[in-house]
């Protein structure tokens, strides 16, 4: 891609990730939640993969293998199970509404759900794009 698109991507990707964390962590007060926040986090990776070539992406993401993201998703799912089954009935009525620390355990559930969705969609996007990189007809 051009230099314009690469520079714009470098500027935009951190802002998109901050917005994704905002949507997922602020989901119990404003519209949003775990699922849209996770998909926004994954769309930052999608923009990165589309704008840069294979070598530039592999240079930064070769340490973070995709299998590790699978493990991260499974640990977050385990966290959701533990929070919903064990912790949730105890601290249900702790906080006052309309402040940041409200909604009981909902904020942690939103965060873990966002992690599960984001890592899963990153795995799917990376698999599809890697198949595109392998085929020589592709223009990417």
């Amino acid at each position: 891609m051009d230099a314009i698109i690469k520079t714009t991507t470098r500027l935009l990707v951190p802002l998109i990730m901050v917005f994704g964390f905002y949507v997922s962590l602020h989901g119990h007060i404003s519209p949003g939640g775990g699922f849209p926040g996770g998909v926004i986090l994954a769309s930052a990776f999608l923009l990165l993969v589309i704008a840069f070539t294979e070598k530039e992406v592999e240079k930064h993401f070769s340490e973070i293998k995709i299998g590790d993201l699978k493990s991260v998703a499974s640990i977050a799912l385990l966290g959701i199970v533990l929070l919903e089954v064990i912790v949730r009935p105890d601290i249900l009525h702790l906080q006052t509404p309309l402040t940041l620390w409200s909604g009981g355990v909902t904020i942690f559930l939103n965060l873990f759900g966002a992690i599960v969705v984001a890592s899963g969609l990153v795995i799917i996007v990376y698999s599809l794009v890697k198949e595109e990189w392998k085929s020589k007809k592709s223009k990417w």
Partner: protein
Amino acid sequence: MKKTISVFVAIGFFLIIVTAVGSFSEKKTDVQEYYTKNSIEKTGSANIVNAIVWDFRSYDTLGEETVLFTAIIAVFLIAHKKSIAEKKEVSG
């Protein structure tokens, strides 16, 4: 012929939906009243949609996340089949 039939079917669905949208909001069930009245007191979160999704029906959401996780594992196993086989050949 096919095109005209499909256009008429689409117009029919459009009319059905337009007439049905008004009647959805008139019925009030007990569950709806319970959720809208008690969501702030029971859960403490101001967003009612989030309160229903993650608190009142959280086991439902847990099932959704499990389905998503299973789909992720299936996609990973299908897409990375070759690399897993190469690793097995190298190691064993």
